[in-house]
């Protein structure tokens, strides 16, 4: 069974491994200890101590924070309960005019702002661009991934997390609260 040194996995993640070696890794059966080494590498790179349960993107991870599981940026900024789309706690910038689009797309490379808006989600802590959406007005933000963390850890990895959580999307609860606040 394949297994790689953590240093090599770091070089792989950073795009520093020669392509010929990457191809060898791709051809081999996968290394079953990758997830643990992956988490260890990411944990060593952040300035905070909460345990990473699952990396979502290069910037964001779900971490264990006391009894809660929250989404946290590598810079330390927290976005709240992992069952709520983290985008609701991000900064957003929308390009929906030709002038705004021209900073990224010029001339024939520009989409039509009457059809589509470009939504940029930024971490309020560090200014990292976390996700970009290109969708027509009316499209709710994609909640890209709601993991079943308990099944993943208990059934797939054979370990238990400190406590179980009901695996339900709670995004609508938050917007209902916003709506109630507006009505008040």
């Amino acid at each position: 069974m394949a297994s790689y040194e953590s240093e090599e996995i770091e070089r792989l993640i950073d795009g520093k491994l020669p392509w010929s070696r990457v191809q060898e890794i791709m051809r081999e059966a996968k290394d079953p200890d990758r997830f643990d080494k992956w988490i260890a590498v990411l944990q060593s790179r952040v300035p905070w101590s909460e345990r990473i349960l699952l990396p979502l993107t290069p910037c964001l991870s779900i971490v264990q924070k006391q009894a809660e599981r929250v989404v946290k940026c590598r810079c330390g900024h927290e976005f709240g309960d992992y069952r709520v789309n983290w985008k609701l706690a991000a900064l957003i910038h929308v390009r929906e005019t030709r002038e705004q689009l021209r900073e990224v797309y010029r001339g024939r490379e520009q989409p039509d702002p009457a059809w589509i808006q470009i939504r940029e989600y930024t971490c309020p802590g560090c200014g990292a661009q976390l996700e970009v959406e290109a969708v027509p007005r009316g499209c709710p933000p994609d909640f890209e991934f709601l993991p079943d963390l308990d099944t993943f850890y208990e059934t797939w990895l054979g370990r238990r997390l400190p406590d179980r959580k009901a695996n339900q999307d709670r995004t609508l609860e938050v917007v209902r609260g916003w709506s109630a606040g507006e009505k008040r």
Partner: protein
Amino acid sequence: MNASVPNPERPVHGRLVENDRLLKETGHLFGLRELRRKQENPGSYEAIWQILQNICNTGWTVGCKVSSSPIATEGGDALWALHLPTGEAVCTSRGITAHPGLLALFVRSLIELGYEEDPGIAAGDVFENNDPHYGGIHPVDFDTAIPIFHRGELVAWASAVSHANDAGYIVPGSIGFMNPSVFGDGVPVTMEKIGAKDRFYPWYEMRIRSRVRTPDWVMGDARGRLAGCITIRERVLEVIEKYGRDYFRDVIQEYVEDSRRYAVMRVKTQAIPGRLRKSNFKDLAMAGKRVLLPEQDVDCLFNLPLELEIDAEARLRLSLQGASGWVPFGENITPTALVSALLNGYSHVVGFDMFNSGPMAAWTLDTPPEGSWANPFPANYFASSGVAWAPAVMWMSSLYEAFGRLYYMRGYVEEVAAGAATTMTAEFVGTDQYGNFSAALALDQASNGSPARGMADGENSAWCIYTPNGDFGNAEFGESYQPVLYLGRNVEPDSGGYGKFRGGLGHTAVWMIMNTPGISYQCGCAGIRSKIVANHGMFGAYPAAPDRPSYASGTNLKERIDARLPLVHERGDPEAPDLAVHLRATTLEPDLVAPFVTPEPLHEYDVVVHPISGAQAQGDPLERDPEHVRADLSKGWTREWVARQVHGVIAAQDPASGEWTVDLEATAARRDEIRRERLRRGVPFRDWWSAERRKIQASEGMHPAVLQMWRTSLAASPGYAAELRGFWQLPEDFEF
């Protein structure tokens, strides 16, 4: 895949029913809890797999050589496969991997429809289908199958598919986006026995000759399909003689179950259980263009939503809830064809080992909303599937990003792929340089950039979504069958989006029309976006630009050639394209929204500039290695303003040597400045949500195509509608 009640007069049908029962009861295909032949002798198991795969590839080689059309002979846009008696694909040739699922379902349908009894299935028979109502995807893809009998027993099938140049669509050519209904979809071959004794019936060829515009190419390709199938049959019979019929019967079942297990295990060991959602959209802007019927004078936007759930057993459930309504163009697809398209996507991102029908038992696809582009017949039984791939491949592109995200979370960054490129086709229809009528698909579209990886850029002009064997053929070959000369075939700068890792870049073909009294340029949609960009801003990247072709007719190109002045070899600056800078023309269209057919024929010295897209990027563009930006600048693959403005890289070019150097200190400062600017201009999501919902309620700034898309999406998918209204806190009876 529900078979009806077993019938003793139909033994293969009985086996099919039994197979379905065994899968349901045991979770294993054919009830194979153990792979006995594999366990007994893994060496022979592997060796015979290789032999069968080589046989299929031999079928491909023979079939392509016998074929006539450039698509098959030079582009290899065809596929041959070996099947179980009940239809499941066992192994396939190289070529267009989008089709094994369709071919498998085609053979299965022959069994389900009772063909064992009537018309009967005998050695030497030839069956064919291209009808979407009975499992085909679109009529230019002809699916052919022949049974393989060994001493009187049906032991397997050989099959083939190739993409014809013309199937008699209402508009010449093979990319039937303009087809308004099934009545424009050309010549049907509906689950037919088209030959016996290894020969076509005469009336098959008579029909092809009276109903398609390029009958020599279409019949040549039909002979190619049959020749490849016969090649497979004869070689397979040799294998059976050598290794025994019992062994062959067992082992071909085990290959399919083995592949199912591989797909399940790959998900379980490399992905994460949970729910993944990815929106995507596709435009078809036809209002004001030359169309066939009044109802086609309309702009359409497709909603292509993907929801993917992985359960504790690593089973996948896919859903298209929210898909928008059918369209009066040839861009609808049936659920059957969609399942096969899904197998293609799955083969790229999940199942790489033994490519066959196995993974189809590892997932379920919810029946798409009735009346949607993905299930049109309940609402319109005559909806066209002229180029059914168009929305399907755009939807499938989300599958790449979805699995890219799953692999990333698990740490397998080397398996990550961002979203796919698009497929904008070019067909030249009219009189060719030999004086013949021609409807010829350029091969350039078969070679896009590949998606960004988790740790590297994608590759340029190396891949396309419907086949990993992307091949755009030699330019000289293209010039031999179309009345054009290439003025350029260049890497298109910045066509792979902007991110830490960019997508592989596409290329632009520049054609000069030559040696024809007149020919039309059909810029087709086999899955493009021309008004919008894809929703593939993975991990903070910017999606690749829309597909925008251009052309000029009545030009002064000959004068410029005679005067040895600069010609048009590439697209040039997006705000000052070379076409407009260098040419004077009666009609000058430097920035067109695709798809379209040129309203007047093009003539000698007219110019077409046809870009083939790159794929999608991933990651914050500010995290791109400045050295990668410098390398791209040096090759002309990115532009200085993009380096500075999007990647925050400050670079300068030495006027003498042309070499670029990066100022790392200035780059760091520029990147900090951009991050501060993001924090300054970004607003809390809640504030934006509050303002945005009011704009939605007022339909503010919403194009009619957007409104119509939402109306049909919400009408066909009540659950999706409730969630969308809930997110924006709109009244329950709110309509767009």
